[in-house]
């Protein structure tokens, strides 16, 4: 092993039924460095971390750690903790109802000679730990009284006090404001100087350049590269994450569509949702395909949720076909002719135990109202039509949706919205975790729908996919709509978009 190396993971392979999540992935973490792990959805970041911390067991590959004999196989997070690998997640894994001191010492509280918990010693020790790390808290207060940032720091302090040498921070900054992030970074630098290796997963590019020393980029479950921060400027990083190589499927979109603008379908002014997305404007014309681009967590999903009314907007106004509309719940939006395919298929899309047919007619039924049941014959007809049209691979229309593959589930959800024949359709990551063939099919369908006059919002982590389908792109960064790119002056190029996403310095 090279000097100074703390963790070395090589040729890691991990498969789930039907999916290769990691293939030939690698990761090297050195002592006293902050190492960013970057990649878009499905890149395999969290999988590789879980393989390291023992949540998953890898299929093959080697993991070595400085000072530990041989190949490491962790079977649980406890195993990992015992050899000094600790993880702090975005949702703090502590008990909010206990004091800070207790959270630091739970399961290993100091006891006095009668075996009772010695609160005095515990509080003193806890205060010392926090003071050493320069975190100002009253350790006797309950954790829930403190901000998420402090809670995360407490989690980190706990890990440090348990002699962790490898600290994994999984998107710790997603819900912090700038000041809190600064505090967290100060702590991270302090730990780095003490020789702890920190693996930092984040979506915020700014932060990577502010605090990290090295970057490992992953894409599609594979290792792309390991760079020092200096040798990888922002634009290159974005390129590495999104992947530059087109698979040369001919552009499906005919040149010039979307040039002539129809009437405005939906227009939003100054809408926002407290805590997730800053005020934004948005316009889509009839028959237009508009893309929302930006990295994961940039606010692209939050924006469409606001428009659709899945989260209620607190400010601004929304117009549809020139009329001001008020959406209090998704049903209102559906009745107005909107549709929304959510990004989290499992949590918000599929009704797992219901059949393909029932899943398809659900939104249509909701629009008609409970007392106007879609007749059995009509249900069958609609289901069969979309199964044929979208070539959904299912044994029959009465098969539970949970038995289909991911791609086919997605098509069923798409069918659910198409069945309502919406004027305005929002597709949030419709192609995530789907094989190439299905992806192309869905893209083609989007173009076809637009040609028939439907307005479609398309969100994807894959840039090329957006370029292929959209005529206009809104760019999102850090919860803000920062501008748009159109194809008025010739086709949109990847470079253009990456520059816009990366923002900041143009190095």
């Amino acid at each position, binding site marked *: 092993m090279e000097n100074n190396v703390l963790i070395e993971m090589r040729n890691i392979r991990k498969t789930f039924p039907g999916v290769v999540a990691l293939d030939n992935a690698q990761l090297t973490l050195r002592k006293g460095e902050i190492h960013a792990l970057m990649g878009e959805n499905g890149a395999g970041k969290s999988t590789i971390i879980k393989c390291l911390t023992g949540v998953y067991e890898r299929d093959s590959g080697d993991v070595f750690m400085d000072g530990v004999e041989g190949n490491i196989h962790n079977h649980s997070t406890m195993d990992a903790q015992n050899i000094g690998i600790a993880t702090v997640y975005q949702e703090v894994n502590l008990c909010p109802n206990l004091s800070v001191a207790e959270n630091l010492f739970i399961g290993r509280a100091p006891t006095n000679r009668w075996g009772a918990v010695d609160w005095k010693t515990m509080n003193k020790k806890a205060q010392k730990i926090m003071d050493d790390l320069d975190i100002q808290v009253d350790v006797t207060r309950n954790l829930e009284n403190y901000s998420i940032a402090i809670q995360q720091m407490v989690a980190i302090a706990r890990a440090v006090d348990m002699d962790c040498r490898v600290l994994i921070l999984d998107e710790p900054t997603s819900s912090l404001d700038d000041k809190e992030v600064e505090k967290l970074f100060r702590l991270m630098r302090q730990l780095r100087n003490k020789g702890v290796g920190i693996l930092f997963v984040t979506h915020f590019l700014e932060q990577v350049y502010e605090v990290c020393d090295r970057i490992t980029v992953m894409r599609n479950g594979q290792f792309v590269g390991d760079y020092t921060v200096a040798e990888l400027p922002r634009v290159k990083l974005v390129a590495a994450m999104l992947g530059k190589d087109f698979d040369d499927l001919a552009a499906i979109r005919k040149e010039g569509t979307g040039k002539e603008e129809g009437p405005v379908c939906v227009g939003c002014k100054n809408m926002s949702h407290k805590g997730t997305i800053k005020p934004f404007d948005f316009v889509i014309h009839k028959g237009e395909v508009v893309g929302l681009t930006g990295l994961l967590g940039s606010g692209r999903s939050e924006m469409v949720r606001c428009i659709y009314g899945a989260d209620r907007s607190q400010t601004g106004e929304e117009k549809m076909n020139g009329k001001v509309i008020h959406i209090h*719940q998704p049903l209102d939006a559906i009745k107005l002719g909107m549709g929304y395919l959510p990004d989290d298929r499992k*949590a918000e899309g599929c*009704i*797992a135990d219901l059949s393909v047919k029932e899943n398809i007619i*659900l*939104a249509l039924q909701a629009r008609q109202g*409970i007392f*106007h049941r879609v007749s059995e014959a009509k249900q069958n007809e609609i289901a069969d039509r979309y199964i044929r049209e979208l070539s959904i691979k299912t044994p029959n229309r009465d098969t539970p949706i949970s038995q289909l593959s991911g791609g086919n589930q997605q098509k069923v959800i798409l069918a659910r919205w198409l069945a309502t024949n919406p004027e305005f359709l929002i597709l949030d990551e419709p192609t995530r975790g789907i094989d190439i063939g299905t992806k192309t099919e869905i893209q083609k369908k989007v173009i076809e729908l637009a040609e028939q006059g439907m307005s479609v919002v398309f969100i994807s982590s894959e840039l090329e996919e957006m370029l292929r389908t959209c005529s206009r792109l809104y760019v999102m960064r850090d919860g803000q709509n920062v501008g748009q790119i159109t194809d008025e002056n010739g086709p949109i190029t990847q470079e253009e978009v990456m520059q816009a996403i990366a923002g900041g310095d143009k190095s």
Partner: protein
Amino acid sequence: MKAKWKALTKQQLFLPIFSLIVVLLINLIKDPGFFQIGLQNGVLYGRLIDILNRGSEIAILAVGQTLVVAVSAGTDISVGSVMSLTACGTCMMLAGYGNNSVNELAVPMGVGILFGLVLALLCGCMNGALVAKLKIQPMVATLILYTGARAIGLVLCNNQITYIRYEPYKYFGNFIPGCPIPTPIFIAAAVIALMTLFLKKTALGLYIQSVGINSKASRISGINADMICFWCYAICGLCAGIAGIIASSRIYSADSNNIGLNYEMDAILAVALGGNNLGGGKFNLSGSIVGAYTIQAITTTLLAMGVSTDQAPVVKAIIVIAIVVVQAPAFKQMLAERAAKKNAVRKEAA
């Protein structure tokens, strides 16, 4: 053969029908005259009729309970008490407050019964509001009425057993003159038919299952999940009310302490025995109903064997635990692990 058997056991109705057959067989062996139905004084009698008759309340309760279980993965344990409250409310209205035995009604019978049913509906609405709006665990929310409703009933009847010695009031729980079949059977059939029709003709069934399986996704798809949940509890309350009227009419009185006693257990057991998962989601009404009559058959059998009504819950409690243990994912996993271990050992031996 084995495959066929497996496919058969996978059917949702397998469990309730199988248990019903077992219970009936046991009875047949013990008492060959079990299936005999005779005519006496112009009305039918016999064990089977008795089971059908006595099972009416449980079947009606099971209808409501099935919806509640499916939509909220919790159960309404207040149904027994609500039955009692309805009975008390109705009898109080019919007798006039403070009277404990009347031969003449104080108000028309319809008004009294309507009053009782409205009380029951209000109870259901209260449960529904607590569960759907305030997001309180169903069992805790319904626990309030589990003790509260019975107590309110006692207050309504001034701590007495109120007797309604008015012939037509007895019809609901006994016989209508000239008809050989007990009236409760008709009422239960009507409730079941109405609910089946309602589920067939409206999209309620789809909504309930959808909310029960994934309420977030249902909301995104345009279903008002809270509202559906609320109405399921309201319907459950109403069903309890109907059952309460029958129970009260049987003894033409309101005995607050004993009407609907332990019925919540029977109702939940009927749902579980009907092959419905107490974790919510997909449901099968017919299963619950067969389950309900199975429970009644068990109760009748136990009574015939000399087990008192007070003792019967022991057996039922054990059945409930057995069903939920078999349904529990953790238990299935445990079995799978054990089987895997055994296989590994066998392989090593080979």
